[in-house]
């Protein structure tokens, strides 16, 4: 994991002092609220329904155990003993006091954390696959590139006041996309060209929100050394030509659409031609330097614990299910990737208590070289667990609420904080998630349904990624009442697609029945090998519509 040097530490400390000074001037009346607003947003601070909300950055989802313990302490000392993992691998506090935020930022800086650019019209946290570095099918570890992008984008003097927010995601596996790169402003897919050289396929102009779009490819192959100069060219074209007259048309996707992907790509190439050989061009030494922070931990030479696991699975069906759903294959023999699910019915998806944060830290130290990762599905990963210790880990996870074996099932719901917390929301989302989880409480039935992404957002801003859920639920406001619109067929993976709206929206209490009806159509129509998405793609939306509105 990346470790700060004296330069990073200096800038982090100066950033805290800067925000302390800005907050002092705001409270003294020297800064108007409209002048303070973008400054506080770029330090992660929103003013929400009940209180301020602070979004803490977790760069590309990586956390050390000392950082987790510090986060736990912060929720105790400054908040109500819980926090919320977001769909962009960040962590939110829901009840901090404005006056105390500079102190919270100072506490974060002590453990090499911050809330820089987690909000506002700037380049946000760069996200990636939570299995980076431990899966066997990745082209290269994406994290060094994420860290290079983090440094390049941090306090970038030219791009602090963009037309709108800007999100970059990097994916490394050819087979799977766990980072949803095609619904980001820039999506980077690591690839090798015919000559075997490393580079990126560049998507620009994806995004959710009011106008959901899958990002088109604007460059098939970008050599790795050209990463930052090319990003600078994309951002400069966007900064200069993105719309600023209408907030709802200000994202880069609108510019890409207006110019056409080809037209946009031409503008970027023309800009890039001027700067591609500038000092911002990466050097092999710079990449090697950053790669040095993402070396393998001290793995032991192990054999796969196949026989041991088989007998443990045979003896304990619950363990067997957990292993089947929440544990993934590791590139090293004898190791496994474990996902701790934060989707226990009755707990808002992604929420953790201070005690749980401390527990994750302890588990990371005990089982996974002191590191944990946040997923965009709002779960937590221990990436390097010995197979012969899985059973003992599982026993330890169960009482802590981390072993719900519902990963990738209908109940592994992505859900925004919604109307319970968020100012922007039209409707609550957490109670809808809970009602669905209660309806589908039979694990065997859930397993039989297989992988279904169900995503819930409380408004058009789509923080719950409803557009790319196989089943999407969107809270809408109808003359002051909360209603829910359902969409089907979305995907955030390599086959990214925006879901189609099923039809008129429903009252909250109807939603579980609607989901049941949709699922029943799938069960009746599927062939033996088909996932929900496969069946939907084969039979289309009509049979679902007919059942739901019958």
């Amino acid at each position, binding site marked *: 994991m990346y470790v700060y040097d004296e330069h990073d530490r200096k800038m982090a400390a100066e950033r805290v002092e800067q925000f302390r000074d*800005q907050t002092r001037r705001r409270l003294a009346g020297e800064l108007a609220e409209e002048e303070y607003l973008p400054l506080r947003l770029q330090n992660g601070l929103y003013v929400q329904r009940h209180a301020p909300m602070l979004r803490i950055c977790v760069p590309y989802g990586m956390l050390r155990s000392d950082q987790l313990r510090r986060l736990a302490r912060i929720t105790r000392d400054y908040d109500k003993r819980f926090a919320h993992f977001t769909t962009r691998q960040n962590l939110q506090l829901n009840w901090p006091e404005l006056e105390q935020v500079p102190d919270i930022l100072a506490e974060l800086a002590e453990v090499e954390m911050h809330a820089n650019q987690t909000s506002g019209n700037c380049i946000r946290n760069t996200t990636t696959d939570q299995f980076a570095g431990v899966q066997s099918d990745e082209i290269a570890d994406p994290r060094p590139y994420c860290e290079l992008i983090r440094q390049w984008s*941090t*306090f970038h*003097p*030219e*791009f602090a006041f963009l037309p709108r927010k800007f999100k970059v995601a990097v994916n490394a596996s050819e087979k799977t996309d766990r980072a949803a790169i095609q619904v980001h402003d820039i999506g980077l897919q690591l690839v090798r060209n015919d000559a075997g050289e490393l580079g990126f396929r560049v998507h620009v102009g994806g995004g959710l929100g009011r106008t959901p779009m899958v990002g088109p490819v604007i460059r098939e192959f970008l050599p790795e050394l050209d990463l930052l100069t090319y990003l600078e060219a994309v951002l400069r074209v966007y*900064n200069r030509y993105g719309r600023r007259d209408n907030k709802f048309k200000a994202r880069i996707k609108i510019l890409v659409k207006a110019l056409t992907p080809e037209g946009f790509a031409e503008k970027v190439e023309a800009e890039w031609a001027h700067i591609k050989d500038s000092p911002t061009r990466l050097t092999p030494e*710079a990449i090697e330097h950053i790669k040095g922070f993402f070396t393998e931990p001290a793995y032991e030479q192990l054999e796969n614990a196949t026989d041991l696991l088989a007998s443990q699975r045979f003896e304990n069906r619950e363990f067997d299910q957990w292993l089947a759903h929440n544990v993934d294959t590791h590139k090293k023999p004898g190791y496994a990737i474990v996902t701790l699910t934060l989707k226990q019915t009755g707990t808002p998806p992604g929420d953790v208590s201070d005690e749980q944060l401390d527990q994750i830290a302890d588990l990371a130290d005990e089982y996974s070289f002191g590191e944990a990762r946040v997923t965009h599905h709002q779960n937590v990963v221990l990436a390097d667990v010995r197979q012969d210790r899985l059973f003992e880990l599982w026993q330890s996870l169960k009482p802590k609420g981390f072993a719900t074996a519902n990963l990738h099932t209908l109940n592994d719901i992505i859900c925004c904080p919604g109307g319970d917390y968020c100012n922007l929301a039209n409707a609550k989302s957490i109670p809808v998630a809970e009602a669905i989880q209660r309806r589908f409480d039979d694990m065997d039935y859930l397993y039989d349904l297989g992988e279904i992404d169900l995503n819930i957002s409380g408004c058009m801003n789509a923080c719950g990624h409803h557009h790319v859920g196989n089943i999407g639920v969107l809270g809408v406001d109808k003359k002051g009442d909360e209603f829910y619109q359902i969409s089907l067929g979305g995907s955030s993976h390599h086959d990214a697609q925006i879901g189609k709206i099923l039809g008129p929206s429903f009252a909250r209490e109807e939603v579980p029945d609607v989901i049941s009806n949709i699922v029943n159509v799938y069960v009746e129509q599927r062939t033996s090998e088909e996932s929900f998405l496969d069946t939907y793609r084969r039979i289309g939306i009509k049979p679902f519509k007919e059942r739901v509105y019958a």
Partner: protein
Amino acid sequence: MPELITADGALRQDDWVVVPRPEEGEALALPDDKPALVPADLWLENESTFANRADIGVWFDSHDEPEILAGKVNEVPLIAVNFPRFVDGRGYSIGRLLRERFGYEGDLRAIGDVLLDQLQFMKRCGFSTFVLRADKDASQAARYLDFFSQTYQAAWDTDLPLFRRRAS
């Protein structure tokens, strides 16, 4: 007369007058006895009279294209860039283009909604003088121009990005 902030935070008085874009059909209202900044496209239209005059500079608005002055940037004594609202970040790109692409060597001035908290970004993008919004305290500027002692990126103020300086 507005106080002018220099790149090191010193204050000085300055006579330059920003001449607004005239209404359709109206002529440029140049001041009689003071140096004037005129809209860049109008300087070009009147190039034969304005060229090589030490008292006529140009200004760009945030939606203007600095490309129109390519090859001629060093024929004007002063260039200003207007920030109509401080959250309009286009001026930063204009600054870098004027300096890094078109090689402008003279004084580059930030005007408009210029506030203390953005001064260092502006300086990093090539601005060398600043006219702070009238209600702000220019005497504090020095502190904000150099708040951060280190930066990650190459820009007008830093030849090499931190990753190159680290590697060497």
